């Protein structure tokens, strides 16, 4: 019997359903929620980096747009959370669409430079417009309320975020097995060859970039509401690097790898908290170690080892 491509999805759904009953306290639940949020962002980024083969070193900029759209519009202008979230997503999408054409003419290190520059500009704006954003100190964000229902407590958040992740996993799995997904993979293989067989390369790059930017922005809004506070760190270079590292450690072009990468890298700082001062060194050393010995990422490496396709 052929293995359904949704088997992994079902496994994850079961794990997510059982997990809250196994976790000893809210500290772990909080960690789980942050893992799931990161997994969603990384999933979108992996579509861009892993499947379409376009590197982005500025993706945290889009997360920042969402987070600050939510914070600023709800606090200073009295918008409803949903409207603010959608405005942020729209802003991120429009920005991505505007820069996509000139940016994706670039390749390799030049593309890395351009996306890095874009992300840094967003992060510097957020840091400087203190009247609106609170500057380097950040600003508080009201709770997420839809109509008269207000989301509160780790339990409720856990179920909502789990739902979002499962939905995005399902959507991504369908996407990469659609003509759109096949076009993306063709693009990664050889741009010229895919052009020859009729793939509109520029259009597909634009579409996937906008999609992953909108997704990052939406999850930025969700993070802002969940944490109840935003700081410019959400948009900075280091966060962009963390996101790319999650993609690569989990495995490029691996849907489930995105989840694994996000889970591991979100947990790592917690696991290293006992090292007192050596966290940064350990974090850096682990990154190097993983990339040297598993350049293809965890999931593809293990899958190859145990003969699974």
């Amino acid at each position, binding site marked *: 019997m052929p293995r359904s491509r949704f088997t992994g999805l079902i496994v994850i759904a079961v794990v997510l359903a059982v997990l809250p009953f196994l976790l000893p306290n809210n500290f772990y639940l909080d960690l789980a929620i942050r893992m799931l949020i990161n997994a969603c962002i990384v999933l979108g980024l992996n579509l861009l980096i892993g499947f379409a083969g376009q590197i982005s070193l500025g993706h945290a900029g889009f997360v920042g747009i969402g987070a600050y759209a939510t914070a600023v519009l709800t606090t200073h202008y009295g918008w409803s959370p949903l409207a603010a979230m959608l405005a942020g997503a729209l802003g991120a999408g429009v920005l991505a669409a505007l820069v996509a054409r*000139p940016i994706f003419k670039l390749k390799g290190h030049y593309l890395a430079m351009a996306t890095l*520059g*874009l992300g840094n500009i967003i992060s510097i704006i957020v840091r400087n417009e203190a009247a609106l954003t609170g500057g380097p100190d950040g600003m508080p964000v009201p709770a997420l309320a839809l109509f008269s229902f207000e989301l509160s407590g780790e339990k409720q958040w856990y179920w909502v975020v789990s739902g979002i992740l499962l939905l995005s996993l399902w959507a991504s799995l369908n996407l990469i097995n659609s003509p759109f997904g096949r076009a993306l993979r063709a693009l990664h293989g050889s741009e010229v060859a895919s052009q020859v067989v009729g793939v509109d390369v520029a259009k597909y790059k634009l579409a996937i970039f906008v999609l992953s930017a909108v997704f990052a922005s939406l999850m930025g809004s969700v993070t802002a509401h969940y944490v109840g506070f935003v700081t410019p760190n959400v948009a900075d270079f280091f966060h962009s690097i963390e996101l790319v590292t999650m993609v690569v450690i989990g495995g490029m072009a691996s849907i489930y790898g995105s989840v694994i990468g996000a889970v591991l890298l979100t947990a790592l700082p917690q696991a290293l908290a006992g090292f007192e001062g050596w966290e940064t060194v350990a974090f850096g050393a682990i990154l*190097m170690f993983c*990339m040297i010995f598993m350049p293809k990422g965890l999931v593809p490496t293990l899958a190859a080892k145990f003969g699974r396709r």
Partner: protein
Amino acid sequence: MNGEWLPQFLQFLFSGITVGAAYALAALGFTLIYNASNVINFAQGEFIMLGGMLTVFFLQAGLPMPLAVLLAIFIPALVGILIEKLAIEPAKNAEVTTLIIITIGAALVIRGVVQIFLGKGTHSFPAFSGSEPIAIAGATLLPQSLWVLGVAALVVAALGWFFSRTLMGKAILATSYNRLAAQLVGINTSRVLFISYALSGALGAIGGILLTPLTLTSYDVGIMLGLKGFVAAVVGGLGSGLGAVVGGLLVGIIEAMGAGYISSAYKDAIPFVMILIILFFMPRGLFGGKVTDRV
């Protein structure tokens, strides 16, 4: 007519050229490593930081200035070699993204170690020949700026000589054009890698040491300085030595002008806006070759 514009313009120009010279050294470091191994070394900024921080440390330990400076150049060169031997060579055939993450990992390790042993404080040391400003046409120039410019010019000239007149320099150039062909004609490409990383570490450190009396240093200055060095290298077109020098000066001057005339709060954003505009119109920088695609 306002007669004040010239001194002010000169003032911005002086400070721009001074930091620009340090960016140029960093950009040359990026270029060397890129040419030798096709890697963008995101730990380049940490070499700059190491130069400044190590000099501070050795001076505090009581060493005389020349010895402190020599050690502060030698150790980052050694760190460069270590990165190449321990991290880049074992992962030789990895993808661009993977290699970028490896060098970022190395940057984190270096920054973390410095933070543990030298602390989080901001440091400086006295300028090499006093801090009595020199007046030029109504603007002032610090003697340290002359040191920065002089040493940078000397280094660039020495590199120029190295690459055009010595066997090793030519071997490095040959390897950057085509590694396999270089190997076939008997060039020891692993020695080329070794020297490129050492030189790159030393170049960054020199920039960091020269700049510290003007701009202060701390364990985390490497991030921004490194990114701007990367911008400078890309402005000139990756892989071009001349491009790196021109790119460095250009980034420094435009940043200083932008900070002076437009907004000092957005000083750090200016190089990134600049690189986006340049790349939109010239996808390979000012001195880069035409884009060709090998199918």
